[in-house]
Every structure is written in structure tokens, then in C-alpha cells.
């Protein structure tokens, strides 16, 4: 073939090469295209993963480190076991004096009491005296007498808040506030706000199973959150469904997180504040709403109330602010609110 006749073919090949390069290289070189960055930490006695969409690793890293610092600082203030935390000072001064606390701690306790009130005490942050009797790792089941004694100190109406002085007072000596059932969701909210303040437009804060999502994924779709199978049997059936979230939080309370089985009965960590024993009507409850503090608090409340009363509570709350829920009852039957019907895909495995 002569050189002259070869040139048009060469030019065609070159043109194709240029297009191929533009196709592959330009998106990778663009500094404005956000990518996802992820970091994990063990904080607040749990495993935390934060995922953000950012224009650069440096931008992501700065925001992530600040968010982790926010979570760590908050976690220290409400640590049940640390002697110098704000929560410990409230508890050790029960029946003696009100304790001045930071704005975040006060806000969290105020919201915990709101959830307690709306659920008629199905969630109760003063359940501490009963919680401390159980040890699910050592399979310790307390005696009925001890539970009865503990229950006498449970009652969210015995918590006195003074907003002006920012103080919290437990009326009875021996009362113990335990914010473990709501604090992780609140921490997810704090971290999400910190990320936004740091210039991050979208991301997910996952504090164990308490997840707060904001913005959209870099591909423009909502974040995809899996829901754990409460009766996982094999490696492949860990997830029973997924929901798409943007500017929403989701939390799940399940009887499979901390538990032991004795004489065929499952004893798990979600205690009914009216009996002091594990609530038995559900396997898991997932709640979806705007704030993590409410998903975390209400998932426990709905779990304790059971499928019928629990779904009724979700509908009542939904009149005040948008709330959805997925309840898997003790037999494995699923009920969902209308907006998220069909979320659970495989109904055989749970």
C-alpha cells in the first residue's frame, strides 16, 4: 500500500485514539468531579464509618477528622461508664442536685424524654438500674427480685430539666440515665452537621446501625442502605432488603445484636421498661425519618410496643413529621408503612 493511500486510514485511527483518550482520561483528570472517601473508627464503644463525596482527598480528610472529633467529644460527655462524664455526674447526683450540662447533652436528654412521652414509656432513658443487671456476654439473667427493685427506680417523669440553667436532675436516689438507646443516632446527626459545615455536600454517617445520609451519591442517586437479616443463616443472606436515602436517617433495633439463649428462650438487650425483661414481639424494627436521634429512639420504642401498637405509633408520629417503619415480628412477618412498601425483597429468610 502506498504512503498516500495509507494516510486516510491513519488519520481515522488517530481520530479514534483522541476520542478514546478524551473518554477515559478527562473524567479522571477533572478535579471538580466528586469521589467517595471513607474512614472508620472505633468510638463510642462501637464501630463508626463515615463516607463522604468530595472533590479531593484532602478536603474529605479534613471534614472526616473533624466529624470524628465531634463524635469523640460528644461520646465522652455521655459515657455511662466514665466517672467524669456529664452523664455520670447526673447519675451520681440523683436525688441530690441538678447538674449543669453542655447544650448537646441537654438537647439529647430533652429529645429522649420526648420519645419516652410519645411512646408512653415504651422507650425510657431512665432504664439504667435494670440494664446494669443484665450481662448478655456473660449470659447473666438477673433474679425477678432484682428486676423488681431496679424497676422501682425507672420512670422518665422523674427527670427534671431546667432549660434556662441547662441542668438535669434525677429526683430519686439510685436512678440512672442510660442514653445508649438514643445517643448514637444523635451523634450521627452531630457528625452530619459537622460535615456539612466543613463544605461536604453529601455523605453517610454510620454509627453501628444508626445511619444518617445527606445529599446524593456522586452518580446523582440516593444512598443505598441495606437492612440486616435478623435471622441470618449463611454468609449470603446477611441483607434482606435495601432502601434509598437522601437527607434521611435510618436505625434498626434487633434482637440479634446482643443476646443469649437459655432454655430455648432468647434474652436480648432491648428491654421493656414496664417488665425489665427483653421485649418479645419483634425480631427487628427499622425506622426512617429526618433525624438520627428519632430513628434511634423510636426504633426501640416500636420494638417494645410490638407490630400493631408500634405501627400505630409510627402513624401517629407521621402526622407531626414524616416517619416510616419496617417491622419484622417474632414470626418473621413483615409490615411496612405505605411509602416504603416492597423494601424487603426476600421474605423467606427472616
Amino acid at each position, binding site marked *: 500500500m502506498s504512503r498516500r493511500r495509507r494516510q486516510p486510514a*491513519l488519520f481515522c485511527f*488517530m481520530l479514534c*485514539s483522541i476520542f478514546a483518550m478524551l473518554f477515559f*482520561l478527562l473524567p479522571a483528570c477533572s478535579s471538580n468531579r466528586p469521589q467517595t472517601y471513607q474512614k472508620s*473508627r472505633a468510638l463510642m464503644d462501637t464501630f463508626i464509618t463515615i463516607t463522604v463525596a468530595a472533590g479531593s482527598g484532602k478536603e474529605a480528610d479534613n471534614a472526616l477528622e473533624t466529624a470524628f472529633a465531634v463524635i469523640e467529644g460528644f461520646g465522652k460527655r455521655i459515657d455511662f461508664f466514665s466517672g467524669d462524664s456529664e452523664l455520670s455526674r447526673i447519675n451520681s447526683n440523683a436525688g441530690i442536685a441538678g447538674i449543669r450540662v453542655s447544650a448537646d447533652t441537654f438537647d439529647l436528654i430533652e429529645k429522649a424524654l420526648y420519645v419516652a412521652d410519645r411512646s408512653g414509656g415504651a422507650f425510657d432513658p431512665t432504664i439504667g438500674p435494670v440494664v446494669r443487671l443484665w450481662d448478655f456476654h456473660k449470659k447473666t439473667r438477673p433474679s425477678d427480685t432484682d428486676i423488681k427493685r431496679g424497676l422501682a427506680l425507672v420512670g422518665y417523669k422523674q427527670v427534671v430539666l431546667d432549660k434556662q440553667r441547662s441542668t438535669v436532675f434525677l429526683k430519686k436516689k439510685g436512678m440512672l440515665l442510660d442514653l445508649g438507646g438514643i445517643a448514637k443516632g444523635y451523634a450521627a446527626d452531630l457528625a452530619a452537621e459537622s460535615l456539612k459545615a466543613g463544605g461536604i455536600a453529601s455523605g453517610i454517617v454510620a454509627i453501628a*446501625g444508626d*445511619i444518617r445520609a445527606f445529599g446524593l451519591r456522586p452518580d446523582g442517586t440516593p444512598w*443505598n442502605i441495606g437492612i440486616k437479616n435478623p435471622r441470618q443463616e449463611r454468609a449470603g443472606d446477611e*441483607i434482606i432488603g435495601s432502601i434509598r436515602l437522601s437527607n434521611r436517617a435510618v436505625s*434498626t433495633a434487633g434482637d440479634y445484636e446482643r443476646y443469649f439463649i437459655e432454655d430455648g428462650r432468647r434474652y436480648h438487650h432491648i428491654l421493656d421498661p414496664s417488665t425489665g425483661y427483653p421485649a418479645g414481639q419483634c425480631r427487628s424494627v427499622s425506622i426512617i425519618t429526618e433525624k438520627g436521634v428519632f430513628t434511634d429512639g423510636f426504633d426501640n420504642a416500636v420494638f417494645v410496643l410490638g407490630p400493631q401498637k408500634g405501627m400505630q405509633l409510627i402513624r401517629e408520629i407521621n402526622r407531626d413529621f414524616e416517619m416510616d417503619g419496617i417491622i419484622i415480628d417474632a414470626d418473621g412477618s413483615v409490615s411496612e408503612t405505605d411509602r416504603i412498601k416492597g423494601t424487603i425483597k426476600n421474605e423467606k429468610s427472616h
Partner: protein
Amino acid sequence: MKRAIRDMTIADRVLLVMLLALSLTGIFIVREAVPLTAEVIVEVDGRAVFTAPLDADKNVLLDSIHGKIGIEIKDRMVRINEAHCPNRLCMKEGWVSQGVIVCLPNKVVVFVGGRGNRLNKELDAVTG
């Protein structure tokens, strides 16, 4: 060599440059599409203190909050084989081939297969 370059037409030279550029592009594409060798990364309180390839059997003892913590890599799987935390739940996790092993009291996170290596790639997070 110089003569060969001198005898080239402009189109030949452009083609040569293009082929070089395409080769470089290929490297970028392969690096993005094919993951590097799987790693084991151990973080204590958010700081990476140990990194090793998953395919090299190894036993290490690292400092943590409650004394030493032992990490064993064998047959592309990882386990915590020594810990002095109260409940030793991390040891009860057993062998893990992909994902994360966490020891909360020690603030130790072991990433098996590298950071951000999730069991389900379609999901951004899991609740429950």
C-alpha cells in the same frame, strides 16, 4: 534511529505520540479497574500501625489500650489470636477473609482486603 524519525511523515509522528498516550491511558484504566494486591491494615485509635499483604502468612503482636493484641494472617485469612480486653469478642470473630474485625475496648480495627472493602459493593451502608 535519527534517520527513521526524519523519514517519518507528520501523520506517522502524530500516530507515534498517540500510541504512547494510549499506552499511558491503558495503565490508568487498568489501575482503576483492577484492585491492587489485597492488604491487611491494622489501625489503633484511628492510626495505621501495621500493613501487610493478605497473601503472606504472618503473626504479629501490636500494642493496644489493654496490652498486646495478636494478629495472625494465614491462607489469605486473618484473625485476632490474642487480646486482653474484657470479653474478647474480637477473638471470637474467628477467621475473616474479607471485611473488618473490630476490638472496641482496644480501639483496634483490622481491615481485611484493604480499607473500604465491603462485603456488598452495591450498598453504601448497612443498618441493623
